[in-house]
């Protein structure tokens, strides 16, 4: 059973504890140009999670403030891992999609593949790597919640088995009419380990709602399965051609010899 996090956006008070916890646990530097909180908060190679401030209208049309935590969604079938031929991105059995710097070749296919634009590149470094939220996999392995989840004073997050959380989310939104009837992450790109519920429509909060419900690797799976066959077939054809041309050259050489003689 993979682990997940249920995020109830209605409970966030915007304290930003989660962003500080991420910096502390991952020893990430503070980025003066890109704040981790506020209207211009932005995910960067240093900011693995941010809390965006949104001034929106609620169902009654009254202006309300909402705070949206962003980080890697940890897809059930991650496109980044699927695109990475070096296996630098790997999906663990506990749920986190993690990154091994020593395997990375720096091709950045993961960045292109991610539908949520999460992986970031250390453009300013001499030996750059790709970075993103790791869902604190070393903590999750020990049964602890990710750092950001563990520090929240307002009860925004719940950490546990994804399927259990999904059931709970369904029951919450069924019982309480304030919630929009959608669990972000249930089906998006085939499902993600991070699940969100909210009282304001997700598109107003900056969520990418027009993504496919199918997992992204499933689109390429059919072609990519053929890779070994294509490889072997081409090998056979090219080897055949090699021997054919070699033999032809040999024959032509021999013939020329005969003419001279």
């Amino acid at each position: 059973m993979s682990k997940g996090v249920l995020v109830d956006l209605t409970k966030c008070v915007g304290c930003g504890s989660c962003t500080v916890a991420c910096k502390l646990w991952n020893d990430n530097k503070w980025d003066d140009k890109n704040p981790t909180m506020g209207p211009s908060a932005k995910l960067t190679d240093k900011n693995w999670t941010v809390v965006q401030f949104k001034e929106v209208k609620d169902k009654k049309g009254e202006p309300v403030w909402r705070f949206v935590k962003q980080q890697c969604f940890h897809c059930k079938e991650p496109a980044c891992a699927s695109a990475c031929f070096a296996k630098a991105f790997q999906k663990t059995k506990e749920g986190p999609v993690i990154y091994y710097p020593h395997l990375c070749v720096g091709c950045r296919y993961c960045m292109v593949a991610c539908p949520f634009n999460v992986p970031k590149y250390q453009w300013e470094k001499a030996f750059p790597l790709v970075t993103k939220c790791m869902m604190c996999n070393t903590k999750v392995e020990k049964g602890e919640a990710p750092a950001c989840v563990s520090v929240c004073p307002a009860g925004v997050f719940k950490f546990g088995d994804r399927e259990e959380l999904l059931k709970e989310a369904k029951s919450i939104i069924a019982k309480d009419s304030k919630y929009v009837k959608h669990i972000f992450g249930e089906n998006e790109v085939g499902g993600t380990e991070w699940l969100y519920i909210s009282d304001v429509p997700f598109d107003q909060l900056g969520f990418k709602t027009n993504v496919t419900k199918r997992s992204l690797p499933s689109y390429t799976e059919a072609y990519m399965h053929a890779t070994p066959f294509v490889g072997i077939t081409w090998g056979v054809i090219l080897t055949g051609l090699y021997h054919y041309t070699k033999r032809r050259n040999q024959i032509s050489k021999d013939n020329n010899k005969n003419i001279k003689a």
Partner: protein
Amino acid sequence: MQNQQEGKDKQKQITRRGFLKMMGGIGLTGITATIAGCSTDPAGGKGWMPQQYQVASSYPIQVKGRIPIDPNNPSITRDDKKCILCGQCIEVCQRVQTVYGYYELPIKNDITCVNCGQCTLWCPTAAITERDDIDKVVKALENKDLHVVVQTAPATRVGLGEEFGMAPGTFVEGKQVAALKQLGFDAVFDTNFSADLTIFEEGTELIKRISGDLHEPLPQFTSCSPGWVKFCEYYYPDLLPHMSTCKSPQQMLGALIKTYYAKEKGIKPEKIFSVSIMPCTAKKFEAARPEMNSSGKHAGKPQLKDVDVVLTTRELARLIKAKGMDLNNLPDKKYDSLMGEGTGAGLIFGATGGVMEAAIRSAYFLITKQDPPEALLNLTPIRGLQGCKEASVDIPGVGTVKVAVVHGLSNARPILEAVRKKEAPWHFIEFMCCPGGCISGGGQPRTSLPPSDEVRQARINSIYNADAHIYSKRKSYENQEVLALYEKFMENPNSHLAHELLHTHYTDRSKQLTVKKKNA
């Protein structure tokens, strides 16, 4: 022999070159390995977390996270780089002040904060501090066109010394005035003066409420503490009619500086820059309230604010240090005249119970036209650090006046609930937002972490000691400058002009939050 020599040379040559090559190679490999990283660990997780978070996910954590702070909060600000998520700010906000956690989620369009700044006193890394306004004051002091006036609150004179190595509660009134004069302020006034003035206005209002001349409910609440006022506006807006309409001493003096003082000195109000030194961060919020422009409205220029900048005691200490001055070596100086006189009654405003004691001293006189008995000058039942104190005072002609004194907002809730249920036996209740009163306000020196009652008591003792032994006058009605103000400008307490300049109104803020039914 020759061969042997050649062999040795060759060996020597190879050794040196080989050695350098070897070292260079090792260095280069080392640097490459260090930069590229030879670890096969996944990224992240190389930092630390405070101990309380190193637990299984379901284990309850008592103190965690931190309070939300609006980036536009006029009083306090936080440096995320210094925050260690110790949870102390939540501890004080929720348990001592009962603000955080006392509203339902989702929040509406406000980050509920009474601006008291107690979190700045509890924060062990000083990540949360007052919003620094020193630059504004420095610029004003450098501007030759401006007449810069400053006032100092009662409580700053028993706190400032601690920033310069003095023992808690050291009385540095004269040195503080000297420092302000050396900094270049054109006039240095005492908020004790307007504290005495508040007694006249608030005392008159109380007598009118008791006698029925003013159709407002009893008990009357004091309105000097802006953190308390905002708390009442958020959580108990239905009780706002109980709140005295008197402005706080800071705002009274601010309004008078740009009217009475401006008139007496022949200076245009717009040329005056008014600064106040306060033990309180909520005073920054109070001065910025849109209605605090009485002097501007009086002069036909509503854009003028009564108080332009508020500095906390800590900010003043930083300003003094930045100018290379040492408070220890300054000679004692006196406040400027016109609004520099203060009595012991005004001074004790700085301690919990002080406003009440000062009010009783004057109320006795205003009603009986006689000096109060000695017992009323040392009203011990309402002194000290007990959260809620009460006393009964017999005043001839009125009967028994019942009063209560509350400090720290968690202590205010049961009293307010009693008032709501009409079960409160008191006529007059003093509320102070911060535990211990202004002497332990959010802008005072961080002498102990978290703030201790020992330090609070030392500051309180110093205040009462000055009231009993240093100040020659102990009753507000003896303040000659206040009497002169009424004679020359204001006519009498609660006059039309007094209402225009010294009284205010309140805002119902209950729409900005959903008050929690059952408190956390």
